[in-house]
C-alpha cells in the first residue's frame, strides 16, 4: 500500500486543529467494527500492537509466570465534524487482560459507547467494569440483531445494572442514522454530565 493513497479524502482538511476520540467497546462479535465502518468517512483502518500479556489468572498451579504474546487490533474510523474538529472512533476489544492497551485507549477519550447484544447481555459486564475502573463515562447501545430477543428498557437496565442517568438506546450498527443517534445520546450525556460537574 503506502503510495497507493490516491484518494484525496485520506487526509484531513488543513484547517483541522483539534482531534477528539470516542471508544466503541463491547464483547467479541457485538458489532464494533460494523458500527465504526458505518460511520467512518474513510475506509476503516486497523492498528495492531503486539503485546505480551501476563497469564490471566494467578491461580495457575504451574507456579511458573506464564506469558504469551498476542496481537491486539483496534479498528478505527474518522468523522470530520467541522472545519477545525475531527472525531475518531476506536473499536476496542473488551478483554480484561489488555491492561496497557486500555490505559492508552482511555487516555484522552471523551467517553465510550458500549455495544450490547440481547442474546448475551452478561458478556457486557467485563467491559463496563473496565470503563468504570478507568473512570471513563459511557452510554449503552443495544445493537439489534435480527431474531434477537427484545426486552423492555427497565428489564435491560436491571440486567445490565445501569445507573439511572446512563443512557440506554437501541441501534442498528449497519444503519448510519441509527448509529449516529446512538453516538448523539452518548455525547449528550457527556455534555450534561460536564455542565453538572462545572455547576
Amino acid at each position, binding site marked *: 500500500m*503506502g503510495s497507493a493513497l490516491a484518494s484525496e479524502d485520506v487526509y484531513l482538511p488543513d484547517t483541522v486543529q483539534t*482531534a477528539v476520540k470516542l471508544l466503541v467497546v463491547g464483547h467479541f462479535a457485538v458489532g464494533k467494527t460494523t458500527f465504526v465502518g458505518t460511520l467512518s468517512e474513510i475506509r476503516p483502518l486497523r492498528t495492531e500492537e*503486539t503485546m505480551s500479556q501476563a497469564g490471566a489468572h494467578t491461580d495457575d498451579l504451574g507456579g511458573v509466570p506464564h506469558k504469551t504474546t498476542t496481537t491486539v487490533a483496534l479498528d478505527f474510523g*474518522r468523522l470530520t465534524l467541522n472545519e477545525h*474538529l475531527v472525531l475518531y472512533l476506536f473499536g476496542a476489544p473488551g478483554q480484561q487482560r489488555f491492561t496497557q492497551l486500555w490505559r492508552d485507549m482511555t487516555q*484522552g477519550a471523551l467517553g465510550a459507547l458500549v455495544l450490547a447484544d440481547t442474546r448475551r447481555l452478561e458478556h457486557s459486564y467485563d467491559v463496563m467494569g473496565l470503563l468504570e475502573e478507568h473512570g471513563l463515562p459511557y452510554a449503552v447501545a443495544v445493537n439489534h440483531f435480527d431474531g434477537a430477543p427484545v426486552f423492555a428498557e427497565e428489564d435491560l437496565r436491571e440486567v445490565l445494572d445501569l445507573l439511572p442517568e446512563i443512557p440506554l438506546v437501541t441501534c442498528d450498527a449497519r444503519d448510519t442514522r441509527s448509529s449516529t443517534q446512538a453516538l448523539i445520546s452518548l455525547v449528550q450525556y457527556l455534555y450534561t454530565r460536564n455542565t453538572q460537574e462545572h455547576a
Partner: protein
Amino acid sequence: MTPRSAKRGLVRPYVITDGRAHPTRNTFDLVTLVSAAQGGDLAGLSPEKRRVMALCRGGSLSVAEVVGHLQIPVSVTKVLLGDLVDSGHILTRSPIPSAELPDIKILQEVLDGLRARL
C-alpha cells in the same frame, strides 16, 4: 483494494527503531495530528522514516492513521515520529490535555457536528 491482512515485515521492529521501545518524547496519543514540515531534507533518513514522510507530505493525519496506512506497530510508529519531530521533519498538533475535563465547547461542537449528519 488493499488486503486487510497485516503483512509481517522481514525486519523485526526493534531493528527499525535502533532497539528502542519508547519514543524520545511522550507526547503522542493515537489522535495526535501530524503533518510534514515544509522543506526538510530526507537525506540520511531510514527507509521507514521515508515512508512516514511520504505519507505525511500529503496532508494532516492522526498517529493512528499513520499506523493504519503503513501497517507498522503503534509503538514503533511513535518512536519513528518522535525522531522525525526532533529532526524537524514532522509537526504535531497535540490532542486536548487528557488530565482536564473535556471542554464544554468541544462537547457542544461534537454534538452539533453529529446532529448535522442526521
